[in-house]
């Protein structure tokens, strides 16, 4: 009975995580669409004024607006690719993935959360990758919980840093709050969910000062 309750709760948490990411991405996509719409509207306005006054729209003005429209279209394309890639993480319960790519994707997805808190989120992913069998959705949920908790515990202008380290058969991902102050990053609920998910991934966590390190082994 306890397991059933726990499973239900964890499924609810998975859904909540999925919803948070989709809501954040769709919000950003909507901003892109809104900006594109206004830029197109501006072109229409300038054409109207130009026709009315018999003065052509300066070429550099046209080029500037066209450039901004292209930029918004490219931004939208990146966001939709991220949305699509993230949505496909639920396709397989286990698949072969480079964990570094999954961390990189999740850092991109977390940037908006950091921006809203006025926190700088940096990642050092310059080292080698770590390819293994993994549940990509659960893995990304674990990264999100830690990074998002760190961001939320930060004050304005503080920094969260994620490093991807590989040592032989171990992959260690320390997530650090560069601030001081010693506030706990994980609340009780997040801590409990994280422990549950880490056990599913056969992984563990080390917590020291301002750092939470996630440790994964091959073939979990």
């Amino acid at each position, binding site marked *: 009975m306890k397991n059933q309750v726990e499973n239900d709760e964890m499924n609810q948490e998975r859904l909540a995580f999925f919803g948070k990411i989709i809501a954040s991405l769709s919000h950003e996509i909507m901003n892109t669409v*809104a*900006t594109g*719409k206004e830029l197109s509207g501006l072109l229409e306005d300038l054409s109207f004024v130009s026709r009315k006054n018999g003065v052509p729209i300066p070429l550099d003005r046209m080029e500037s607006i066209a450039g901004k429209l292209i930029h918004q279209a490219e931004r939208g394309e990146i966001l939709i690719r991220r949305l699509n890639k993230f949505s496909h993480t639920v396709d397989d319960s286990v698949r072969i993935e480079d964990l570094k790519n999954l961390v990189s994707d999740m850092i991109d997805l977390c940037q908006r959360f950091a921006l809203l808190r006025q926190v700088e989120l940096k990642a050092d992913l310059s080292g080698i990758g770590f390819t293994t069998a993994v549940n990509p959705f659960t893995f990304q949920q674990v990264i999100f919980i830690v990074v998002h908790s760190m961001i939320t515990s930060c004050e304005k202008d503080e920094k969260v840093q994620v490093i991807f380290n590989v040592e032989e058969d171990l992959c260690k991902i320390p997530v650090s709050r560069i601030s001081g102050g010693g506030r706990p990053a994980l609340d009780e609920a997040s801590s409990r969910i994280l422990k549950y998910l880490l056990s599913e991934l056969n992984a563990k966590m080390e917590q020291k000062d301002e750092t939470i390190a996630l440790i994964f082994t091959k073939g979990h």
Partner: protein
Amino acid sequence: MRMKILLVDDEGELVYTIAERLTLRGHQVDAMTDGNLALERVATTKYDVAVVDVKMPGISGLAMLKIINRDHISLPVILLTGHGSSEDGQEGMDEGAFAYLIKPVNIEDLIETMTRAVEESHEKSSGK
């Protein structure tokens, strides 16, 4: 009616483009991307209406609304919300916003809403 408008949204390109479109229609617009700076401006400049995004870094549109209402009761505020976050808009209405519009907005709808807000504000201040 020509209005003096304060427009606040952290999406720079969006806010500056809306501002230019409103300016082409004869309005005077201050476009800002930082809510805290916008609050400083509100303290020193008289606007007819403010249009404020709900979700912004630093200070949210709702928090701005509360401060504006506390200090500048005569400034009507229209909130901009993302699609699907209408509960933010409703909360804003409860806090005294004149209206909330869901992005992307239609420029003519925005002007129509701002005009109504300014007219109602003038009626209130003249005691009608």
